[in-house]
């Protein structure tokens, strides 16, 4: 096990039990009434979901940065998260947003974005233009899904629907149950496995596309692994928690200096660190004494943006 994996796995093992105790009500298992029920039915599924979603976003970010050979890449670039969000917003718009239907609509949205991406970018004959086409197609899908989401908000039938859409889009893990875990965890795990399988090909991509192909990389296989892997991890994450930004962008940056910087060695620790980040951020959301709970998506952006700026400043000074 590499150093980075050890560090983040150890921190995660410490953080998970602590996170169960923390919240608006601090649970003391011996004293708090209904402690067992609170832990098993409220806090534990929420913690598991935070870990699952964070792991998916972290790994997807690391894989995307490896694929595009660009530290500024983010899983959102593929248009899968906006596609999933559009699906969920459609469910809210037409008023069928039950605990099961909303995530299912989101998964259909993610699947639609993936299919569109594969259809547009999957048949390119020239591998040199493949990545550019892929990225542009992803950005256009993201723009289209974003525009349709805004349209749904502006045409919302009533103020309640509008507010529920806007709130949902901010991303949160409030009141999530084991049903959400059952939905997101298997899909995310499958996605993580696919991203992990892409690791060696991503290492070869370090040398550029031609050299990667000369090393036996098949671009179509790599693209399929990434579209499916990112689609499953990010899509299922959005389906149960809404849009949660920044994790896929920041986490690989945090992790990379602790590794030998090969994309394959960044993926697993990024999954662990992503899990840790979302778990901690969700705890912060719970314990802040605000009137209503801070939305997780907002909290992560509030933590993430200044942190990222600091990172950029350090990079500019050449200290990293």
């Amino acid at each position, binding site marked *: 096990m590499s150093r980075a994996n050890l560090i983040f796995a150890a921190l995660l093992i410490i953080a998970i039990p602590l996170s169960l105790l923390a919240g608006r009500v601090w649970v003391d298992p011996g004293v708090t009434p209904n402690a067992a029920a609170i832990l098993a039915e409220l806090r534990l599924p929420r913690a598991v979901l935070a870990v699952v979603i964070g792991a998916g976003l972290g790994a997807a970010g690391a894989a995307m940065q490896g694929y595009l050979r660009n530290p500024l890449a983010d899983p959102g670039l593929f248009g899968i998260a906006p596609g999933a969000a559009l699906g969920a917003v459609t469910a809210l718009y037409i008023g069928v947003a039950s605990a099961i239907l909303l995530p299912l609509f989101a998964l259909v949205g993610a699947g639609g974005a993936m299919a569109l991406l594969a259809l547009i970018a999957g048949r390119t004959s020239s591998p040199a233009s493949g990545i550019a086409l892929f990225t542009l197609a992803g950005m256009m899908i993201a723009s289209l899904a974003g525009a349709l989401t805004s349209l749904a908000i502006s045409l919302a039938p009533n103020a309640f629907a509008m507010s529920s859409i806007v709130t949902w889009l901010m991303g949160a893990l409030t009141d999530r149950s084991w049903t959400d875990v059952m939905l997101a965890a298997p899909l995310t795990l499958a996605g993580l496995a696919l991203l992990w399988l892409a690791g060696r090909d991503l290492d070869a991509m370090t040398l550029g596309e*031609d050299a990667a192909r000369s090393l036996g990389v098949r671009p179509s296989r790599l693209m399929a692994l990434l579209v499916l892997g990112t689609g499953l991890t990010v899509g299922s994450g959005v389906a149960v928690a809404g849009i949660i930004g920044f994790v896929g962008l920041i986490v690989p940056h945090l992790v990379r200096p602790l590794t030998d*910087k090969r994309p394959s060695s960044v993926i697993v620790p990024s999954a662990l660190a992503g899990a840790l980040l979302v778990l901690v951020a969700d705890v912060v959301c719970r314990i802040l004494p605000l009137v209503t709970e801070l939305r997780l998506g907002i909290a992560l952006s509030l933590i993430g943006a200044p942190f990222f700026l600091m990172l950029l400043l350090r990079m500019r000074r050449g200290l990293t």
Partner: protein
Amino acid sequence: MMLEARAITIANRLDNVTTALKHGEITAICGPNGAGKSTLLAALAGLLDVDAGEVLLDRDPLAALAPRKRAQAIGYLPQSGQVAWDVSVASLVALGRLPHGDAGKFAIASALAATAMSDFAKRPVSTLSGGEKARALLARVLAGTPRWILADEPLAALDLSHQLTLLKVLRAQAENGVGVVLVVHDLAVAMNHADRVLVLDEGSVVDDAQPEEALDVATIARVWSVDARWLGDAGKRALVTGS
């Protein structure tokens, strides 16, 4: 062992190119800008689809070979010299083992030794000079122990001493039976260091012979439109231009 191009045509880039490359030799591909040198090299490496004709490796069509098998046989060094992440030299060279799917410690150590990069193994690539980086990238190809090394202008942007170091490494590979194919701009390098020279012009083979014959002044005048003379003895020639 043979790597052959049989009447390969790629629209607007290569026109009916036939050549048979031999192992144990250094073959230089020369020609003016836009002659199709890099295209031919990439086609020989199996990286381009040809519109007509075929590339054969040991008489089997290269296109039918599994990418991994092809990668084990042919090492390709692109011109870009791109290394996207600041990995260590050891990690960079280890990428050469990807087609084999093993750690290949011995092959990596040999490749580092052959390029005099053993002492740099732990250094991040970003701290290397241009010459050191070129050696590290060549070591990456050597680590895959390919039977063919196809390199696109490996000497470009290198100073004289680094050019000679790299050529020495490639010559040693050829002496071990590896087929070495280089795209070369410097005609004197091709003249003095290649066993054979393939001259391309506008996508077609103009000459395919030993250097003294392929790069005679008449060919240079015709293909490059330059009046030039060779000075010195065979193997130590210098090209002078102008009257």
